[in-house]
């Protein structure tokens, strides 16, 4: 049984924490939060590229470090803990992982080295309006290799260089690689619940698009990409949830009410114990997801669903109860609790809400039972 980070992975995680402590303190996060013109921190992005994190799981032949996915999970956990304001998930978990899993050799050679070097920001464009996009509602069209239609919202779409776009060609849904710096693309930055992560509306009007994977398999490919991303996002959520528990604990130990520290009141203690229980359930499920991701195991759909459900629940609970423990101070803009509350929503919504993953999990269990 070897179901934890190895010593090397723990070392990498510690180093990542140290780097982020030095380069992504709360002033960096607030620098993006409080400036409507910025949706990520360029300096941190550059620093992360120099650390090699953008190419951590990209093979060395394509300019990456060639590490495993567990190492990427360790980095993700620290990024989540630091509420890092960078398009890391869109670029690494979605674009890089998506191209590695579904791209042609040519696509890999063209994009992966540039991602590793920090030259390309990615994004995933599937949503076209409120609610869930499905084969019957998909509006974006590709004709003769040209994409037209509107995607809204697209996380990191305002700063991305390249998008993976879900669109239909002759009634066959597919996933398309689109350079966003071309004439047929117009973008508009939108306001986000989490201003430390950018979001945009993208209008395509005859933009050149190159298919990734089989024609007609668009929804399946997107799901496969999201299965991988869900595990990595779960680690970001876990890192955030752990930090919320720490913040609540630190505050409760220093705050006096009715003549003693509030950390001694059972109402507070049990709240923090509940956070701990949910965080540990999330951690254990996330580890299983990490194993399935790293080993390309057939269990990945179930493992990823469970990891995402548990981590979404843990981060939501920890982020809202962290505010509660802080009392009125927790409701102010100046105290950092809301950064985590916002990020917990952003991470839960960005790759399919937990409700979808619960349905996916049960469907997969049904399939497994029938087999």
């Amino acid at each position, binding site marked *: *049984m*070897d*179901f*934890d980070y190895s010593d090397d992975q723990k070392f990498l995680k510690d180093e990542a924490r140290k780097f982020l402590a030095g380069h992504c303190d709360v002033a960096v996060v607030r620098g993006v939060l409080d400036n409507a013109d910025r949706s990520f921190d360029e300096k941190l992005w550059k620093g992360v590229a120099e650390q090699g994190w953008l190419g951590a799981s990209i093979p060395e032949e394509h300019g990456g470090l060639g590490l495993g996915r*567990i190492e990427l999970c360790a980095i993700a956990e620290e990024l989540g803990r630091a509420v890092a304001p960078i398009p890391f998930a869109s670029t690494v978990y979605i674009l890089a992982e998506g191209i590695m899993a579904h791209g042609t050799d040519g696509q890999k050679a063209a994009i992966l080295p540039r991602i590793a070097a920090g030259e390309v920001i990615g994004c995933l464009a599937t949503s076209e309006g409120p609610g869930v996009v499905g084969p019957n509602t998909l509006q974006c069209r590709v004709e003769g290799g040209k994409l037209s239609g509107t995607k809204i919202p697209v996380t990191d779409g305002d700063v991305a260089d390249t998008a993976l776009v879900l669109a239909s060609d002759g009634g066959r849904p597919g996933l398309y690689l689109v350079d966003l710096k071309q004439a047929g693309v117009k973008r508009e930055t939108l306001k986000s619940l989490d201003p430390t992560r950018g979001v945009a509306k993208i209008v395509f009007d005859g933009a050149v698009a190159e298919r990734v994977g089989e024609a007609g398999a668009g929804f399946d490919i997107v799901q496969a990409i999201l299965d991988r991303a869900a595990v990595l996002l779960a680690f970001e959520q876990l890192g955030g949830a752990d930090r919320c*528990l720490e913040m609540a*604990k630190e505050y*409760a*130990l220093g705050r006096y009410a009715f003549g*003693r*520290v509030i*950390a*001694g009141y*059972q109402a*507070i*203690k*049990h709240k*923090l*114990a*509940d956070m*701990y*229980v949910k965080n*540990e*359930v*999330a*951690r*254990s*499920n996330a*580890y*299983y997801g*990490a*194993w399935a991701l*790293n*080993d390309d195991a057939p269990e990945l759909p179930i493992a990823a*669903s*469970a990891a995402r*459900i*548990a981590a979404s*629940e843990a981060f939501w609970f920890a982020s809202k109860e962290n505010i509660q423990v802080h009392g009125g101070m927790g409701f102010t803009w100046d105290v950092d609790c809301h950064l985590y509350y916002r990020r917990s929503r952003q991470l839960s919504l960005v790759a399919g809400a937990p*409700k979808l*993953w*619960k*349905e996916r*999990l*049960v469907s997969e*269990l*049904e399939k497994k*039972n029938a087999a």
Partner: protein
Amino acid sequence: MDFNDSPEEAAYREKARAWLAENAAAHRAKFGELKPNTPEHMAAAKDWQATKAAAGYACITWPAAIGGGGGTPIQSVIFGQEEGRAGLGYGYFTIGLGMCVPTVMAFADSETKKRFVSPAVKGEEIWCQLFSEPAGGSDVAALRTRAVKDGDEWVINGQKVWTTGAHYCDYGILLTRTDPDVPKHKGLTMFWIDMKDAAVECRPIHQMSGGREFNEVYFTDLRVKDSQRLGEVGDGWKVALVTLMNERLAVGGSAGPNYREVMKLAQDLAGPTGPAIKDQAFREKLADWYVQSEGLKFTRFRTMTALSRGQTPGPESSIGKIISANQLQEMANTAVEMEDQYGILVDPDQAPAEAAFQQSLMWAPGLRIAGGTDEILKNIIAERVLGLPGDVRVDKDVPFKDMPTGR
């Protein structure tokens, strides 16, 4: 990350499997299928325990010199897994070997240890733990059973409650009050006692679930020798903590149906808008239960990983019973409601799943209380894991006899 044994662990598992294949079959051939809580079942359990002890598979982590296996914690976990897989494993010895005998080993003189440890390991004698009282459940130190010194003996009067297996046990460790004039934690003393003494009376408790697995134990002028004392006079709380430290390891583990059974039930039943399994609200609950159950399973894997690496496991295993007990209650109720009007039936011949959900519904309230209530377990996480301060103690400096007691 992987789920594989190390080469040493694999070798041990292989050895354990081979031994089990041979001995479990022989054991079954000898005893057949038996109903739990019968004298025949107990005899079979004792036989199996003796067989394991002879081969070094009882108390695997204890030194061979005292009858144990001289092995490691991970070997103990591996053997437990394989024993479970072989469909064996009797519960009669868990509390004695997990909690009572370790306390005896820590505090008794060498003669007493020599007399009791080996018979307990071999299953010849079974031990129970006599702590909880009507006036002291979560607050064990509020107990009132009195021990009064009389020459070289102590005379004990009082009552214990919720004593698992008291009616079949041979010996017990008993926490008493020896000094009511000092604050409650300071006036306690621990003894080992003979459960077959005429001054000890066991009365089964009729539980709300209908069963009678636990007991009240009454002591009427029970006389014990001073040499039966474990630890110093007045040090009983310190001794009890040693016992209770082992409780979280010994108690727990979820009994009853899990998400698989409730999923199967939903596949078989009709709901308001089609098959019950297609009900969206049910599917979301099912997903949550899956995530919790698997979360606990993988948390155990993390604990095993620490043991396998020769490290001390982290505190994460403390989440187990809080989750499993509450989940069992919610799952049982959802299942019973899913059966609709039929859910009221409790006869195993009529109710689906042989009435497992009805039985769990009535058992779950006890599970949320036994071995640490939900509330006490959350206090333990808050204080021992997160390092938050203990509650304000209004009884800390008050002599026990002056403490308000209510009813």
